[in-house]
C-alpha cells in the first residue's frame, strides 16, 4: 500500500505542484511584511482608481468579447452564407495578435499625424484632420485591444457547444413557433452557457494578467500598482500584497471556469440521437449582414493590425535591416520547442498518474499545480527571482556550495521553469480533456489483453491523444511567442525574441521600429494557427 502510494506518478505530481506553489507561497508570505510609505500615498490617491479601472477594464472586455465571440459563433454555426467556411477558421486568426500589438496598431493609426491622417491627406490634400480623427487610447483603446485579441476564446468554446446542441432542441423551438431571436435567446444560449462562461473566464484571467497593452496605454490598474510598488518604490512586500488580492480575485474566476467546464462536459455527452444539424441558408439582406458582421470582425481583429504593421515596415524599411530576423526566429522557436516538450511530457505523466492511481491527494496536487496560469507573468517572474535569491543565500551558500543564481536567473533554464509554472494548466487541461474522451474501460480491456501500463500508455493513449497534444502544443506555442513580462525579466544576455524586441522599441519612443518584430510575430503565430486550424476546430468539435 505504501509503495503503491509513493510511486513515480505521485512523486512527479508532487514535484510539479511544489514548483507552482513556490511563487504563490512567496507572494502570500510577503503579505504580512512591512510595507513602505507607498501604501499611504496609494491609499490617499489612486488605490480606488486602480480598483475601479481594473473592474471597468474587466467588465468592458467581458461584454465586448461576449458579443463578438457568441455572435460570430452563432452566425457561423447555424447559418449558411457566402464565406462562412472561410470565416469559420479565419476568425481564430485573431489569436495571432497579442493585445499589445493591437494597442500599437490603434495608436499608430489614430494618433496625431498617424496613418489615418496620412490617408485623409492623400485623399483630400492638406488639412487640419488631426482634431477630427477619433483617438482610441486610454481605457477605451485598451478594452478594444484586449477584446479583439481575446474574443476567439469565447468564439471557439461557444461554437463547439453550439455544434453539439441537438437538432431536436432547435426543432423544438421551431415547433413552438419561436422567432430566430427567441430560439437563440431562450434555448440555444442557455444550453451553451457553461461553454461561454468557460471562455469568458479565460478572457478574464488573461485580461487581469495583461501587461504589455496596459503598460502601453498607461492605464492605472492593479497590475500597474504592483509594478510601480515593486519597481519604483522598492516595495516588494506591498507589490506582493496587491498581488495577493489580485490572486484571490483570479482564483474565484478560476473556480468558476473549472465548474463551468465540468457542466460543459455534461452537455457534450450527447450519446445517440445525434442528428447532423441543418444549417439555415440565409439570403438577401440577412445573408449580407451575416457576411458583413464576420468580415468586419475578421478585418478589425486581424487584417487591421496586420496591415498597420505591414505599412510601417514598408514605410520605415531601415528598421527591417536593424534586427537579426533569423536570430529572433531561432530564439523564439527554441523557447517554444523546449517549453512545449517539457510541458507536454510532465502533463502526460501527471495525467496518466491521475488516471492509474485515482488517488485523492494526487488529484488535489494536480488541481493545485494548474493554478499557475492564473498568476500574472510579472508576479511570477518577481516571485521566482525573490525565491531563488532567498534560497541561494539561506540554503545553498550556507551549505558551502557555489551560488546557483546564474543557473536560474538570466538563463534558459529559469525561463523554461517559469513558463512551465505559467502554462502548465494549458498542457494539463488540454491533455486531460483528451483523456476524458478515452473511456477507462479501454484501459481495463488493454490490461486484460496483457498490455503493461507502459504499453497501454504508448500504444493506446498517445495515439488517441494525438489531436489533444497537437492542440496543446499550438496553445503553448502561441502563448510563448506572445509572452512578454517573464521573458523580459528572466532572459539571458544577447537573447531577444520578437516579443521583447517589439516591446522594447515601443516603450523607448521608437514605436515605428516595433513594426518589424510585430509583423513577424503575427505571421509566425498565424502560420501556426493556419496549419492546425482544422485540429483546433475539430478538437473542440469533440
Amino acid at each position, binding site marked *: 500500500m505504501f509503495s503503491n502510494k509513493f510511486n513515480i506518478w505521485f512523486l512527479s505530481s508532487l514535484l510539479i505542484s511544489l514548483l507552482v506553489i513556490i511563487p504563490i507561497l512567496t507572494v502570500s508570505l510577503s503579505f504580512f511584511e512591512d510595507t513602505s510609505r507607498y501604501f499611504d500615498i496609494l491609499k490617499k490617491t489612486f488605490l480606488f482608481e486602480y480598483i475601479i479601472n481594473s473592474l471597468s477594464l474587466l467588465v468592458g472586455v467581458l461584454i465586448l468579447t461576449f458579443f463578438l465571440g457568441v455572435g460570430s459563433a452563432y452566425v457561423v454555426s447555424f447559418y449558411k452564407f457566402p464565406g462562412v467556411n472561410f470565416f469559420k477558421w479565419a476568425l481564430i486568426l485573431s489569436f495571432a495578435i497579442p493585445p499589445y500589438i493591437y494597442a500599437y496598431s490603434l495608436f499608430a493609426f489614430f494618433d496625431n499625424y498617424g496613418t489615418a491622417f496620412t490617408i485623409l491627406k492623400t485623399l483630400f490634400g492638406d488639412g487640419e484632420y488631426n482634431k477630427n480623427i477619433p483617438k482610441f487610447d486610454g481605457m477605451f483603446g485598451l478594452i478594444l485591444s484586449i477584446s479583439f485579441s481575446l474574443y476567439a476564446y469565447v468564439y471557439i468554446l461557444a461554437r463547439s457547444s453550439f455544434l453539439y446542441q441537438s437538432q431536436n432542441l432547435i426543432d423544438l423551438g421551431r415547433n413552438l413557433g419561436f422567432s430566430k431571436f427567441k430560439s437563440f435567446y431562450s434555448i440555444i444560449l442557455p444550453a451553451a452557457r457553461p461553454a461561454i462562461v468557460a471562455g469568458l473566464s479565460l478572457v478574464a484571467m488573461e485580461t487581469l494578467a495583461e501587461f504589455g497593452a496596459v503598460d502601453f496605454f498607461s492605464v492605472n490598474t492593479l497590475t500597474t500598482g504592483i509594478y510601480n510598488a515593486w519597481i519604483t518604490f522598492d516595495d516588494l512586500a506591498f507589490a506582493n500584497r496587491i498581488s495577493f488580492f489580485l490572486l484571490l480575485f483570479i482564483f474565484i474566476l478560476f473556480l468558476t471556469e473549472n465548474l463551468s467546464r465540468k457542466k460543459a462536459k455534461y452537455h457534450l455527452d450527447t450519446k445517440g440521437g445525434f442528428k447532423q444539424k441543418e444549417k439555415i441558408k440565409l439570403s438577401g439582406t440577412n445573408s449580407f449582414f451575416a457576411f458583413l458582421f464576420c468580415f468586419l470582425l475578421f478585418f478589425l481583429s486581424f487584417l487591421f493590425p496586420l496591415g498597420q504593421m505591414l505599412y510601417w515596415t514598408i514605410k520605415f524599411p531601415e528598421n527591417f535591416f536593424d534586427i537579426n530576423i533569423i536570430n529572433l526566429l531561432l530564439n523564439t522557436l527554441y523557447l517554444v520547442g523546449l517549453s512545449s516538450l517539457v510541458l507536454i511530457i510532465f502533463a502526460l505523466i501527471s495525467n496518466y498518474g491521475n488516471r492509474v492511481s485515482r488517488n485523492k491527494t494526487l488529484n488535489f496536487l494536480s488541481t493545485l499545480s494548474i493554478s499557475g496560469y492564473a498568476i500574472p507573468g510579472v508576479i511570477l517572474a518577481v516571485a521566482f527571482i525573490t525565491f531563488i535569491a532567498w534560497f541561494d543565500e539561506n540554503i545553498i551558500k550556507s551549505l558551502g556550495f557555489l551560488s546557483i543564481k546564474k543557473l536560474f536567473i538570466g538563463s534558459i533554464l529559469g525561463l523554461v521553469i517559469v513558463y512551465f509554472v505559467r502554462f502548465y494548466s494549458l498542457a494539463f487541461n488540454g491533455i486531460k480533456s483528451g483523456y476524458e474522451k478515452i473511456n477507462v474501460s479501454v484501459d481495463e480491456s488493454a490490461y486484460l489483453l496483457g498490455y503493461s501500463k*507502459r504499453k497501454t500508455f504508448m500504444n493506446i493513449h498517445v495515439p488517441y491523444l494525438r489531436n489533444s497534444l497537437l492542440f496543446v502544443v499550438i496553445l503553448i506555442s502561441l502563448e510563448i511567442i506572445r509572452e512578454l513580462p517573464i521573458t523580459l525579466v528572466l532572459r539571458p544576455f544577447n537573447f*531577444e525574441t520578437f516579443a521583447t524586441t517589439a516591446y522594447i522599441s515601443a516603450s523607448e519612443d521608437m514605436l515605428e521600429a516595433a513594426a518589424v518584430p510585430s509583423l513577424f510575430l503575427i505571421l509566425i503565430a498565424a502560420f501556426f494557427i493556419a496549419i492546425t486550424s482544422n485540429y483546433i476546430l475539430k478538437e473542440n468539435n469533440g
Partner: protein
Amino acid sequence: MGIMKKIVNTALIICLFVSTFSLANEVNIFNARHYKADAELYSKFTASTGIKVNLINGKAGALEKRMIEEGVDSAADLYITADAGRCGAFKSKGMTQSGLVSSTIKSSVPKSFRTTHWVGVAKRARIVYYSPERVSGAELSGLTYESLADPKWKGRIAIRASSNIYNKSLVASLVKNNGKKAAGEWAKGVVANMARDPKGNDRAQIMAVAAGEADIAVANTYYLALMLSGNKGPEQQEAAKKVKAFFPNQNDRGTHMNISCAALVKGAPNKANAIALVDFLLSPEAQEHFTNNTFEFPMIAGVSPSSLVVNNLGLDFKQDLTTSVSSYGAKQADALEVMTAAGWK
C-alpha cells in the same frame, strides 16, 4: 518515452552550458538605452579593442531589479541608461561601486555630470515647445519651469505621465531648488493646466501642440531634431515644423539638463573593460556618432551637436550647471510623491 527523456536531458544540458558559458575578454552591459546607434558603437568598440560586448536589453526598472536580486553574483559590469535620476537612484541602492575614474573621464566630463560611480556620456535638455500661432512672445517672455503652474496656461499644457523618468528628474530638480512643499503646489498647478490626461511619449507631446490639442508641451531636445530629420516619416517632419523650442529659466539658474549615463555595477567582473568602454564612449568618434544619430548634445568639448539641433534649437542657451544631476536620484521619491499627491496620472 525513453527517447523523449534523452532529448529533454540533452536539451537541458546544452542550454545550461550555453547560458553559463562565458568568454574571458568581455564586458557585460545591462542596457536601457535602445538606440540602434548604440549597438553600432559597441561593434566599433569590439573591433578596435577585441573586447566582446554582451548586452541585455530591457526597461530600466526591470534591469535594475534583476541586478539587485542577482546581487554579488551578477555578471553586470556596466549599467547604461538615459537619465541621471536612474543612475543616481541605482547608486543610492548601493548597487554601484566607485572607481569609474580615468584620465579621459576627468578631462572630458564636467564635474556636475559625473560621480566616481557613474558618468554622463551625452547630454539633453528638457524644454518647452510652443505653437507660434497660439502663443505670443509676450506670453513666453521669462518663462520658467515654475511658471508652468501659472493659471494663464490653464488647459494648454501637454506633458507626459508622472511615471516617466524625465518628468521625475525635472520635478526632482524643482524639489531640490524650491523645496518639497513648493514643488507640491507647483505640481497641482501643472495638473490643473493640462490640456489632456498625460499620455504618449515625448514626440506625442510635441505632436499634440502641432495638432492643436495643446499650446505648449514639455519634451526633451533631441525629439524635435529626430522628427525634423524625417527618420520618423514626412508627417512628423511636417508636425515638427509647426512648433518652436523655448529654453526655460534663462534669467536664473538655466535650463534643466540631463544625461545618458553609464554606471559601474558593484562586483563587476570586468571592471577594466568597463572603464575602457566608457573611455571609448567619450572619444570624439563616439560622441560624434551620438550627436548625429540620437541628436543628443555631446558631453565633451570640441564636438558639435547635429546641424538639425544647432539650426532649430540653437545652442546659446544657459544650462543649469548649479543643480547637480546627482540630485535627481536623491530627490526622486519626493518628486513622485508630490506628483502622485497632485493627481498627476
